[in-house]
């Protein structure tokens, strides 16, 4: 059984990510590491769901994240080994019909492939305890 891995060809128009995050790697994605996990209680939101505000201080180059009343202080960490972000792709059926499929097993898996969508060499890490905010940040953000 073979599952091909392809490299996404550079689109040429550059990353659509905010410029502050551009040097984390090349490709469409970057990594943000959090202690614990994010829990979402809304199911199938039609619109995108706001999580928090990420900011990189231009003077100290320190990232910070506000989620609800929590303030998280983070840092940029260089990865000792770069990571490839692979995305699962299912190739369409028309590609399959043209393939020389020998047996049942490869037929079943023929549609799956993984695409390397980004290579990251740095990540943003928030590994400290969140600090409570005295002022409710939602109103502040709303003003901006």
């Amino acid at each position, binding site marked *: 059984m073979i599952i091909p891995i392809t490299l996404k060809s550079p689109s040429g128009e550059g990353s659509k990510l905010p410029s502050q995050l551009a040097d984390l790697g090349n490709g*469409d994605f970057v990594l943000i590491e959090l202690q614990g996990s994010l829990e979402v209680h809304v199911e199938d939101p039609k619109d995108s769901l706001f999580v928090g505000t990420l900011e990189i201080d231009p003077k100290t180059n320190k990232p910070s994240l506000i989620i609800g009343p929590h303030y998280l202080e983070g840092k940029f960490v260089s990865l000792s080994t770069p*990571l*490839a972000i692979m995305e699962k792709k299912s190739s369409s059926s028309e590609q399959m019909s043209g393939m020389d499929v020998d047996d049942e097993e490869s037929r079943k898996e023929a549609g799956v492939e993984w695409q390397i969508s980004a*290579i990251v060499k740095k990540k943003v890490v928030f590994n400290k305890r969140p600090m409570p905010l005295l002022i409710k940040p939602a109103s502040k953000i709303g003003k901006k």
Partner: protein
Amino acid sequence: MMAESFLQGGHPIRLEFPPASVKESGNFRLLELPPNLLKSIESNSPSTWAIKGNPTEDAVLCAGDRTYSIRSVSLSNSVLVVGPGETQGQITIRGTNREILQVTPILPKVHKLVGLLRGREYDEGREDLDDDFLDGEQDTQNQQQAKKGYLTYAQALTEIQASEAELTNALKDRRILLINGTLRPIAPSYLSTILELLLNSLVSLQQSHESASVRVLADALQDDHEIKPQVTKQVMAWFGDVDEYYWRMDVPSVLTQVGMGILRAYRHDPIDENEFLNKWKNAVGDTFASRAELSLLLGNYLSSTKPQSQPPSNQLTYFPSSELPLGPLARFGDLFLTRTRWKAEDIGPFLDDIAIDRKERDKLLLTYARAVPAPDGTYYTSRTIK
């Protein structure tokens, strides 16, 4: 106060979960890239990467000309895969990962070929069976071959956990012929015959081993010995460089193969070292006799002192490392059953095919054997406590 200083900084970025419609596509894995893999990606060479393995096997990554084992490592933190949002000031969470995949270079798992090709040997007298397939279209032919239980090259590429370059090498190393799209290991005795005929023909047809005419040799073997040109040509390619017209013979590898052919008969009863060398030199002819040295056969024989001989002389037994078990524990078990103690330089050649480099070989020795210093060098004994 903290929030205020925070908000005075640069441009805040809104971190969001995407709408439900986008979420579906998010299925991510994080793969560690050791330096050579990173180089392979960054050079953007059209190398083929693939994950290979059947449900009963551990999956491996075949990238370029190497094979890697894949291990999943759990993280205590969660890692968000974040992509661009609709506007410049937005980013969206596309996936959450709590594991990364680590890869380690390993030897390709080509040993499976042995099992898959059992009973498919290409030998003198059996080659006629293949003539049935020479007619008809390529496709139906492939189907016929597959039905008969022959392994095609395309099947091997799917079944064997190795990159294409490694598979090609394995076919060469294991002397497996490609006959009408199917893989056929050549019978060792038949291979020796062909090589000896080639050596003889070089002399009789006055061809130089540095640049011998491929066509002349192939024709001679076909006319006089009914050996198919496609077989002769593949054998020539295994033992040297072949371009369209000329063959540049790789002398050491031809000598090794001929030597192995002779040695193979002495699996149980040893042969006197000098007697063996004479036989070997005879078989390869005067031109190459001086280059037939035992060092070419390392890892394939055991040398011992002949009992009660005067003057003392050595005798050899056929003992190929290719027939030893692959697991290090079983390999060392077998080696120490054969001999209770090994000199460092003697045991080395029997480990080369299970260790990727010298460093790993030394690591295996440290793990599975016990080093015992002696006046004439280090010896290794079994680590197993009985």
